[in-house]
């Protein structure tokens, strides 16, 4: 990817809500034109960081520039250069899709002679042309999200921020959303900055940052992060897992974790380890899988939590909403 400089620069960013330190000193550079993923458990500071970058929340300390403008000193300049897709819909349900886009085009100063053409192109991109003049209230969740993405890029922003853009969508719609994002990047070179819970989506990003407890704990391409784990993951099933685990620990000196009827060993070199393993065990080995560490493994190692625990089901969403309320009350 052509590196044309950084479109987002963050230095020592801190945000405190009363005694609670939501963001504790973040440094970050996002290159122009990349798809940057922001990964972390709930409450890690993802949304707060994105809100600061979008000028919705004031920082406590540090600095952040977006598209060359300081977010604290020139919020207006930043706002005109970014597009946003929020976690929760921010459409006017009473208006039609076209009217929503028209409002946006006016508010962002899209020149008069380009308005209708851009609105048409945006609707076409997300495949909503034939529903354009229907009130948004009749839309499904996936349609609303697609409309929001169309709206987010209507004014050709330099950075498109997306906060959990695929949350609550079915896999097919998620894939469609990603098609749109890649298309936007390919056609306009727009930088995409997104938070996500889904590991497969993190894999699709050019670079990802893992944030936990308000700090960035890892940053790099998905491959780099997996390489940082060093080595391979060997997953074994045997006729007697308990005994096998004891033998692996005592005879081979490797740490074993047991999970759902399988044994998992992190080793420096998987292919070399497997023959030794088979020789060392006196129980029957049923299956052996050698794989590279996944982002799940990276995430687990870095945060001590498996991301699947964090996947937002309805209970998670409720929890998040309550957390926001609580935060809201502190303002």
């Amino acid at each position, binding site marked *: 990817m052509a590196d*044309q*400089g950084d*479109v987002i620069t963050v230095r020592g960013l801190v945000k405190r809500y009363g005694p609670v330190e939501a963001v504790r000193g973040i440094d970050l550079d996002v290159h*122009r034109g990349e798809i940057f993923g922001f990964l972390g458990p709930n409450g890690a500071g993802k949304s707060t960081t994105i*809100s600061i970058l*979008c*000028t*919705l*929340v*004031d920082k406590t300390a540090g600095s952040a520039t977006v*598209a*060359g*403008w300081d977010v604290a000193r020139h*919020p*207006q*300049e930043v*706002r*005109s*250069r*970014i597009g*946003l897709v*929020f976690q*929760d*819909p*921010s*459409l*006017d*349900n*009473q*208006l039609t899709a076209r*009217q929503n886009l028209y*409002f*946006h085009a*006016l*508010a*962002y*100063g*899209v*020149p008069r002679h*380009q308005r209708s*053409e*851009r609105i048409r*192109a945006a609707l*076409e*991109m997300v*495949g909503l042309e034939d529903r354009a003049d229907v009130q948004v209230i009749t839309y499904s969740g996936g349609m609303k999200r697609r409309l929001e993405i169309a709206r987010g890029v209507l004014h*050709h922003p*330099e950075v498109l921020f997306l906060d959990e853009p695929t949350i609550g969508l079915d896999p097919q719609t998620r894939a469609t959303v990603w*098609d*749109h994002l*890649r*298309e936007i990047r*390919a*056609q*306009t*070179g*727009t930088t995409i900055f997104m938070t996500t819970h889904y590991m497969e989506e993190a894999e699709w990003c050019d670079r990802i940052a893992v944030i936990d407890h308000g700090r960035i704990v890892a940053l790099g391409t998905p491959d780099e992060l997996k390489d940082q784990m060093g080595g391979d993951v060997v997953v074994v099933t045997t006729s007697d897992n308990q005994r096998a685990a004891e033998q692996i620990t005592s005879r081979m000196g490797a740490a074993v974790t047991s999970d759902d009827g399988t044994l998992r060993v992190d080793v420096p070199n998987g292919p070399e380890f497997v023959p030794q393993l088979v020789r060392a065990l006196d129980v029957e080995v049923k299956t052996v899988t050698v794989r590279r560490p996944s982002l799940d493994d990276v995430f687990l190692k870095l945060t001590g939590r498996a991301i699947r625990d964090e996947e937002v089901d309805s209970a998670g969403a409720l929890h998040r909403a309550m957390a926001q309320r609580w935060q*809201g009350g502190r*303002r």
Partner: protein
Amino acid sequence: MTNATASSPVVEQEASAAALGSTGIRVRVPFWQSVFIIWYRDILRFTRDRARLIGSLAQPILFLVVFGVGLSSAFGAGSGVLPPHTTYLEFMFPGVIGMTVLMTSIFSAMQIVWDREFGFLREILVAPIDRSAVAVGKALSGASQAMIGGIIMLIFAPIVGVRLSVLGVLEMLALLLLLAVSLSAFGIAIASRMKSMQGFQVVMNFLMMPMLFLSGALFPLKGLPTWMAVLTRFDPVTYAIAPVRVSLFSNSGYPAPFINAAQVTIGSYTLPLLLDVGIVAVIGVTVLGLAIAQLRKRD
């Protein structure tokens, strides 16, 4: 990818624009265009929601019919408050128009709470338009809705028996507009603090009812017990209702005592109408400033 290969001239042009980076020229939306955008969207919603308009007229009509007719006999000629050949219903009429404007203006601000609840407020707040334009646009949209209500109420003038003159009506509408903008701004200042619909409604009812009842919209401010007279003079709406009433009556040949009954007095001093208007204007600008400050706040 659905359309990755399609590349129109527009797209290519944009790709180079994006490559220009932050030096790329961004069009600044002029202040009044921003105001218009905010106003336009609210009005678009308003026209789609006729129930709201009808709802905002129901209460004033009820007051006009029940209080107006019911109390006319008590207040009428011979009661000493109003001069002969005039009725309480006539006297009350401009007040009910004022009441319509008051209620519609204030409750139009509920849209902000609504927008917060349904997320659209964020779309407004992250747009590159100045927050003062948001406040002014919202105040004007609330005022527009209120004015529509007020004008519709004028239909009842012949039924009530109020004589209208073109000049009187125009003067009254201008004064009502000032009242409407001020009250809408007041509503916005409150609404932008509120996180729930219920909270806004409770607070607004709590504030609105005394503002309405103490304003002289529904009864003459003459001959009140001192404590109540004092309270009415502290109600900003009082200073809006008096000029509205005077302007409507003085241009269509009502007797002087009838018009005098509408004016605000402090002791034996009758406040000139311009002073009334000035008071309302100053309060209006102040609450608009408060509303802007509220909207400018970042967490």
